[in-house]
């Protein structure tokens, strides 16, 4: 939301170029050991090995590899990173080194002036201007406790984008937004394809700036003020991190950033799983922009996403709030009545998102095929629209209320993985039917006869009406398909064997279910069924695709990939070469614009996602040959770019900041391949910029799309082409990250005593989901949950496998010897851990790797619990998530599994 794309800005391999690496909110060595190889390569580099830092409550296997450990209380990362920002802005180096000034003034919105009515958390004691009550819609389970009207967060005299666009984050459906853009000239538009006049009508007036950064309403001055009280003393008091350790981290980041140095930040769900998770990540983006690390080799932010294709599952989404390629899901809460309404609400007229009409119409063509025509508004009226927050927790609450009748759990095990898992298991008992498709009979599949609720008599198999169906799954090697891994890299996998017996791929299951439902609804005249009946659904395999296999009705993965990549409408053999070929007049069909280009020509030999050529791209700079990204190893969206925003790896004039950190640069002599005119961006990666746009190019006033941006605007997805230190839109909880306490916390909010936790978080005050009050004496310890290398998620892929089961055979609670002594607990003795939601038993693993912290003058203990265990499988244990609370971040409804409170006693 600060940079333009919801994905890692770089790839793990780029870490070999890093001079310093800060790992925070991630136990990278344990949870992403393969990506961690690049951290180790940076550490092994000779000469000048990278400095590795780990900020984490625990001393983990990641910490063991780090040069600096900063122990911090779980959930206080914004205070920690905000402290680094304040440290940087008070340092001499940042002002003396021209690099920082040039980068920040040119590539970020530091100089932009903000609406004079904007009030910061420093003015309003912990909240931003525009806070009001939340009005719940029809759905009733959105959970917000407050809502911001973000008008005052906009740029002075203009607006760069409306709040709520899901392309940035998420809550598209739950907070009604105005159509169009404030400040844009309102003129009548035809609203007809190709929608050019519609887009043109949305162009806002340009922002006003103060290049001296002195204006008090400039982003830079607001930023400085916002973090001015995040001093080392304050950081130490809030986080428990000793001041000298904090300062070491801050100085290491600062001193390892500059024209010839870069620092990277790696994070994972240790940052996301908080009621302010996206803001934590935003703090890192902000810091990296200030340090000039974005878009440069060895810089950026590595978002370590889940295995094996969590990135893929948000790109071609299983998310409720977005459709393919990060476009908002049509919603009844917005002006989304027609395609033109949708486009008016969702299109950003300047920057690359100005092409939204092309993406959206091509998407509708992929859904409804020939049935989608200009005359019927591309079949848009058939498309489902969301009515509110339909993410996991609200759906389970709706299930508990009896509002959900059936559920497919495919590759998901909420009986172990769900927050307040006992509540969720009881909700399952309210279903009419439950389909579980997985490798083994999971805890979810067996909740009706083996769960703790059965054992303690709360439920009995006789009283549960849910009919449970179990379908065995094929394994990865038993099907064709793709993974999209953490660096947006799409990789195809081949089928090596037929699955045994009735086990089938998820694709087989979905395809045949769809075919049977179509048959069931055939001939229906009900308007609600027409969308389903008109949906294109033809992935029949060609005979040669299944000739060698026992299973003859496995759908064709390549046909699915073709639809995702896109083709000329009516000519499925004419694949699109990339998203630049998309049209808004129905002549192109493309399910997911960001993936376009992965399959430019028919035939698996042309599937770029299947290519396995490790040779890196090379380029000559000043007569010297340099090696860069491995561009023929799979295909990374968008357009095979490996490091995003890489225009910023060159100075505003287009030359590299330094030879050591050269990545993409402007070659004034190289002819542009399409026009033949001299001048082109080139280098060691695919340039993330208009190829022939010279560094000296000026923004065209009133223009749409990339023409509205200049040759020095690297963040092409943003309406102003800048990296956003101030996020004027896209976030529902504030333009600057602000320290709040977790909803369950032992400590007061020292920075904003009147605002303990986020004023707009989501919570559900319902029976069975009680929570502890701040500083509740009954629950004095901070509980943090996590994964181990040896197991995967809820354990379905590891606890059933003896080789992995023996490596971590039992649930344990990691505690310090100090806490163990206080409680009279010995190593491997049983302890009982309790929260307001329940209690579990685990063996104590007493270790000095757990460290009591001094927070606000008091000693604070952490209890660490892996959450892999359940009541099925080769090795079993209590379900850690029985303890967790259903509470959500306001942007993406992620729960707060990384920081809540508990009690611990000897069992």
């Amino acid at each position, binding site marked *: 939301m600060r940079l333009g794309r919801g994905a890692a800005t770089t790839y793990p391999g780029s870490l070999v170029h890093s001079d310093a690496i800060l790992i925070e909110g991630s136990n990278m060595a344990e949870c992403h*050991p393969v990506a961690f190889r690049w951290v180790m390569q940076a550490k092994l580099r000779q000469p000048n090995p990278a400095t590795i830092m780990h900020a984490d409550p625990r001393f983990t296997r990641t910490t063991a590899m780090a040069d600096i450990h900063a122990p911090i209380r779980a959930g206080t990362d914004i205070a920690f990173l905000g402290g680094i920002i304040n440290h940087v802005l008070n340092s001499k180096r940042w002002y003396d080194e021209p690099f920082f000034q040039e980068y920040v003034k040119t590539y970020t919105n530091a100089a932009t002036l903000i609406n004079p009515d904007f009030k910061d958390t420093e003015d309003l004691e912990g909240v931003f201007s525009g806070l009001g009550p939340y009005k719940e819609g029809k759905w009733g389970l959105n959970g917000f406790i407050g809502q911001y009207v973000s008008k005052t967060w906009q740029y002075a005299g203009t607006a760069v984008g409306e709040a709520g666009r899901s392309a940035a984050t998420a809550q598209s459906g739950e907070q009604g937004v105005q159509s169009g853009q404030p400040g844009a000239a309102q003129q009548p538009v035809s609203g007809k394809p190709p929608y050019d006049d519609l887009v043109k009508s949305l162009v806002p007036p340009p922002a006003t700036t103060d290049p001296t950064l002195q204006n008090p309403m400039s982003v830079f001055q607001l930023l400085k003020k916002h973090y001015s009280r995040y001093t080392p003393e304050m950081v130490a008091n809030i986080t428990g991190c000793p001041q000298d350790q904090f300062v070491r981290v801050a100085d290491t980041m600062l001193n390892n950033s500059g024209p010839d140095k870069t620092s990277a930040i790696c994070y994972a769900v240790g940052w996301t799983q908080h009621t302010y998770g996206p803001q934590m990540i935003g703090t890192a983006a902000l810091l990296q922009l200030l340090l000039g690390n974005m878009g440069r080799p060895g810089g950026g932010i590595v978002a370590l996403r889940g295995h094996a294709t969590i990135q893929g599952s948000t790109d071609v989404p299983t998310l409720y709030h977005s459709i393919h390629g990060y476009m908002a899901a049509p919603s009844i809460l917005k002006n989304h009545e027609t395609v033109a309404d949708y486009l008016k609400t969702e299109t950003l007229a300047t920057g690359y998102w100005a092409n939204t009409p092309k993406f959206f119409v091509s998407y509708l063509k992929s859904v409804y095929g020939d049935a989608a025509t200009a005359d019927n508004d591309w079949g848009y009226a058939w498309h489902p629209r969301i009515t509110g927050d339909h993410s996991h927790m609200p759906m389970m609450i709706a299930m508990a209320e009896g509002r959900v009748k059936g559920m497919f759990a495919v590759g998901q095990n909420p009986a172990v993985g769900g927050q307040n898992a006992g509540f969720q298991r009881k909700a399952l008992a309210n279903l009419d039917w439950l389909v579980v498709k997985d490798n083994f009979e999971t805890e979810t599949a067996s909740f009706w006869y083996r769960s703790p609720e059965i054992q303690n008599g709360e439920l009995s198999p006789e009283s549960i009406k849910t009919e449970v169906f179990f379908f065995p799954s094929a394994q990865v090697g038993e099907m064709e398909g793709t993974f999209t891994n953490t660096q947006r890299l799409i990789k195809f996998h*081949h089928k090596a064997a037929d699955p045994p017996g009735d086990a089938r791929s998820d694709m087989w299951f979905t395809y045949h279910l769809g075919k049977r439902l179509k048959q069931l609804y055939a001939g229906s005249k009900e308007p609600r069924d027409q969308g389903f009946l008109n949906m294109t659904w033809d992935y029949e395999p060609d005979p040669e695709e299944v000739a060698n296999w026992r299973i003859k009705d496995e759908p064709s993965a390549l046909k699915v990939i073709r639809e995702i990549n896109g083709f000329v409408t009516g000519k499925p053999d004419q694949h699109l070469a990339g998203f630049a070929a998309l049209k808004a007049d129905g002549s192109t069909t493309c399910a997911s614009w960001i993936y376009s280009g992965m399959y430019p020509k028919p035939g698996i030999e042309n599937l770029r996602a299947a290519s396995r050529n490790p040779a890196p791209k090379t380029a000559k700079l000043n007569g010297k040959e340099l090696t860069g990204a491995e561009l023929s190893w799979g295909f990374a969206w968008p357009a095979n770019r490996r490091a995003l925003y890489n225009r910023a790896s060159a100075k505003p004039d287009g030359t590299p900041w330094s030879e050591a950190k050269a990545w993409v640069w402007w070659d004034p002599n190289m002819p542009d391949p399409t026009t033949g005119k001299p001048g082109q961006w080139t280098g060691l990666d695919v340039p993330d910029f208009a190829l022939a746009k010279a560094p000296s190019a000026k923004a065209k006033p009133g223009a749409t799309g990339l023409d509205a941006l200049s040759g020095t605007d690297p963040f092409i997805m943003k309406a102003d082409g800048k990296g956003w230190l101030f996020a004027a839109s896209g976030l529902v909880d504030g333009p600057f990250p602000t320290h709040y306490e977790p909803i369950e916390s032992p400590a007061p909010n020292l920075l904003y005593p009147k605002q303990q936790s986020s004023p707009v978080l989501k919570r559900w005050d319902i029976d069975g989901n009680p929570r502890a009050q701040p500083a509740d004496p009954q629950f004095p310890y901070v509980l943090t949950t996590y994964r181990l290398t040896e197991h995967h998620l809820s354990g379905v892929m590891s606890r059933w496998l003896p080789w992995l*089961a023996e490596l971590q055979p039992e649930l344990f609670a990691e505690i310090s010897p100090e806490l163990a002594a206080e409680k009279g607990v010995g190593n491997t003795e049983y302890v009982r851990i309790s929260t307001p939601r329940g209690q579990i038993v685990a063996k104590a693993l007493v270790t000095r790797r757990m460290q009591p912290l001094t927070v606000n003058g008091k000693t604070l203990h952490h209890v660490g619990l892996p959450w892999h265990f359940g009541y099925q499988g080769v090795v079993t244990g209590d379900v850690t998530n029985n303890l967790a609370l259903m509470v959500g971040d306001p942007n993406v409804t992620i729960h707060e599994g990384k920081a809540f409170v508990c009690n611990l006693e000897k069992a």
Partner: protein
Amino acid sequence: MAQQSATPAATTAAPPSATPAGGTPVPLASIPPASAYAPPGAFPPEPLGFYTDTSVCIGCKACEVACKNWNGLSSRNGGVNTLSGDSYDNTRRLDGQHWRHVKFIEQFSEDRTNGRWLMMSDVCKHCVQAGCLEVCPTGAIMRTEYDTVVIQADVCNGCRDCIGACPFGVIDINPVNNTAMKCTLCYDRLHRGMEPACAQACPTASIQFGPIAELKQRAQARLEQLKSQPRPESRPEPRLYGADESFLGGLNAFYLLDDEPEVYGLPNHPALPSQHLPANVGLAAVGAVGVGLLGLLGLRKRRMDEFAAEARAEQISDRGATDPGMTLGSDEEAPHA
């Protein structure tokens, strides 16, 4: 990666089986053959081995699992086990079923200002002068063309001489077939031009495989790098272990350690059994060894029985609520004799 030059097979996938369980032939046309990555055939016959850089071991245990996977080794009790309480080490030792074992050593001062967590993937050292090979009465233990030490299971009579002769405690009886077993340095894979399974699985290049001469150069460079970095004064110097001929003629699986060997449970001066013998004592010594061996066998038998009883008890208590139908027959090991 520097590793690739020494190990042309670094990226080779496990050989695809031509006939999977279903009996359907695998269409190999779309899968690049192994020869696309590495020339077919064996490595040239020269000393090959492991250099294990413990300073980048992240304790992920991928080596343990890859080893068991490739070599078809079972899990103790089908994976059911008790938490050791000894850091993250739950497999606990090298033995006949564990040919790779990751050690975890936690060292923290009480105030945590000085702390570290050492990890080390342990394995057979493939000694140039190997005690096991010296004492094996049946010739089951051999030195290969790669200068590695391999036990041939079909020649081993389970006499256990080698167990006591190994100064590192590497070898033990595998209860599934009752012969002495240990790491083979993936002798079978070397013949196919593939690197050992553990080294291929290692994500951080802590386990490096290649010609010993080259590995030693790499290790020396890394040692110098480590020595040049700042370090708490109280901490012993990093060092190489087994990279020279100061003991056992050198180790073909040698280590870079961040502390003294004893910290990692390695002997400071490992020696061959024969080095403890005066010259030409002849038959008397053999007799003495025989007597000692009988005692050892008795001890061993008792320990095995205890272990079996413990395992059975664990199985009963841990599986109490579990459907016996869930146990994985193929991975369930044979009951102990």
